[in-house]
């Protein structure tokens, strides 16, 4: 299954990922020949930008740390200004396999947002405790709203089609967790179709995952707050004039 990658932009938000970003960029460029690869350096204070540039990526450097949401909206704006119709978000820490992007892009025919789901059977990815329950609850609620079974709504691996790119370039939440949960709610409200594709996860090639009870509880609380307010917000006139010329 080969998809034309010419109009696809891989966006990689990276905050202090100098160890892994180079390898991930090189892997993306070999796995997905022809696709654009944009690394958004989210205010890092290490060599993330240089390493990504040396590996062959286009690099946009944010002067301040905006979080994943800010970095992603920059990616969507870049895509819109440079004629890319599809945007795929990949983590810079190497836990997403670029090989699964082809399958996700293929699904964009019938959907506007395709999520690479970590618990959908492929590979072995495990989260325990409160954080796991938070993820299950969120997925349950968003599945109801989106009228489609979704098992991993906080996944950072997702592909957006032309409609979603236009929408997200205009409004993409910057809040922590807003970038995953609220963006899905915004997409559904604006009439976008969401689907998921099972993907395998790998161990992170740099950095340490955060697992501790207090953090998990905070995660759960923030996730629920993010979800509740995403649902309470009035649906924005989504097809507002897009800011880019």
């Amino acid at each position: 299954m080969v998809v034309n990658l010419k109009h696809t932009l891989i966006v990689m938000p990276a905050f202090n990922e100098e160890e892994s970003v180079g390898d991930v960029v090189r892997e993306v460029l070999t796995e997905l020949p022809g696709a654009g690869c944009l690394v958004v350096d989210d205010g890092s204070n290490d060599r993330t930008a240089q390493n990504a540039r040396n590996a062959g990526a286009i690099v946009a450097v944010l002067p301040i740390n905006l979080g994943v949401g800010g970095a992603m909206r920059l990616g969507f704006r870049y895509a819109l200004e440079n004629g890319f119709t599809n945007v795929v978000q990949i983590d810079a820490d190497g836990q997403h396999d670029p090989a699964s992007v082809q399958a996700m892009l293929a699904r964009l025919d019938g959907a506007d947002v395709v999520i690479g789901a970590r618990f959908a059977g492929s590979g072995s990815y495990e989260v325990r405790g409160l954080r796991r329950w938070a993820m299950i609850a969120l997925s349950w609620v968003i599945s109801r709203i989106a009228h489609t079974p979704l098992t991993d709504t906080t996944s950072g691996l997702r592909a957006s089609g032309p409609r979603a790119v236009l929408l997200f370039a205009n409004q993409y939440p910057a809040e922590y967790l807003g970038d995953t949960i609220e963006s899905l709610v915004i997409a559904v409200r604006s009439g976008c179709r969401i689907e998921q594709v099972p993907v395998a996860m790998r161990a992170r090639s740099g950095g340490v995952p955060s697992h501790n009870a207090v953090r998990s509880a905070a995660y759960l609380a923030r996730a629920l707050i993010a979800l509740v307010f995403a649902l309470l917000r009035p649906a924005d006139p989504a097809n507002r004039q897009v800011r880019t010329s």
Partner: protein
Amino acid sequence: MNTTSYVLGVAAAILILVVVIELLRKRRLRERHAVWWLAAGLLALLVSIFPVSLEWAAGVVGIQVPTNLVFFVGIAILVLVCLQHSAELTRAEEKVRSLAESLALVELRLRQVETQLSRETTPPDPDADA
């Protein structure tokens, strides 16, 4: 209430008004943010000059100890100002975010244009592809 406390009340109210008006005059405070402070200052001046007005107002709303009305109105104004500041902060953060994104895009574009320009001005390199 003796004369000293009367003078103290009036002086405090005038001080607030003078500070707010001076900040406005020097453009260190925008009108939008000063409205609440001006209103509070004027109210304080009115009450300090005519203490009877406070007793009258407390009687109208059914508050038995007039000072409680002062506390209530004072706290209400502070809460409203705090809320307004939080909302303003949110707006300012959103503006900063948009500016940061635009700056990053312009910087990237500049870098690309510079690379292209230096490629065009240097003699063609047989190894480089077009």
